[in-house]
């Protein structure tokens, strides 16, 4: 493997790991349920994307062809994340989870 590929893989792994960590940290730091929805669906998207890219580069560099399955994983993740976020938000509104103080607007009655 060329040194350039190794640097690129390491950088992407660190970047992706940092973003996933920030997403998890957001889950703990943000004040209420609705704001916490943003952490895992968001920062994680970029985190997983970067880790997927590094995996594609790794398997291309060791000569196993371009990994289509990694791209598929990312596509599935991108397709399912909004649906689960939507279901979580709907369920929270249904059982009347309170939004934090200072939230503008109101959740809908279900």
């Amino acid at each position: 493997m060329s040194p350039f590929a190794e640097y690129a893989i390491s950088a992407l792994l660190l970047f992706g790991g940092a973003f996933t960590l920030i997403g998890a940290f957001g889950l703990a730091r943000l004040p209420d349920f609705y704001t916490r929805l943003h952490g895992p669906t968001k920062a994680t998207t970029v985190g997983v994307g970067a880790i997927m890219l590094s995996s594609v580069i790794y398997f291309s560099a060791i000569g196993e062809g371009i990994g289509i399955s990694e791209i598929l994983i990312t596509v599935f993740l991108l397709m399912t994340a909004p649906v689960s976020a939507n279901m979580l938000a709907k369920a929270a509104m249904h059982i009347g989870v309170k939004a934090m103080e200072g939230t503008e607007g109101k959740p809908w009655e279900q």
Partner: protein
Amino acid sequence: MFDRLSFPQPWLSLILFLTWQILSDGVSGGSVVLGVILAWLIPQMTQGFWPERPAFVKTWRMPGYILRVLKDIVAASFSVAWLILSPRTPRPAFVSYPLQLDHPLAISILASTISLTPGTVSADVSDDNKTLLIHVLDATSDQEVIEAIYNSYEKPLMEMFR
């Protein structure tokens, strides 16, 4: 009895078949047979859930749209990451977004896009498909959020689904 053997969603069947070939680690006789069975069975089972097909979709505009969304995901992720790390409290808001799209598939694409782009989660669609409830993590003003979504996502989608 032969109408049961049809493929009601040819594109979905094709995508399922190709996805199965990619997932099954090399094309073989077995993977082709199972791929055909899945490509037939899954559309048959889910047919009742699909909204009616759009009158006309400009599919060739889709790659450009996806690229733009990916770019926005990366750019906006940084602002959300910064917000999480900075000590100030975010200013969340529920925004009612007036929908101009009317096709169910277009609305679900828009809602998914909104959920994927950092800082916004689409929480609900009104029963008459006219309003989308969006939770914004850090809003300066409702109008700004609505305009941003309209200009970058809803307008291109309206051009696609006409």
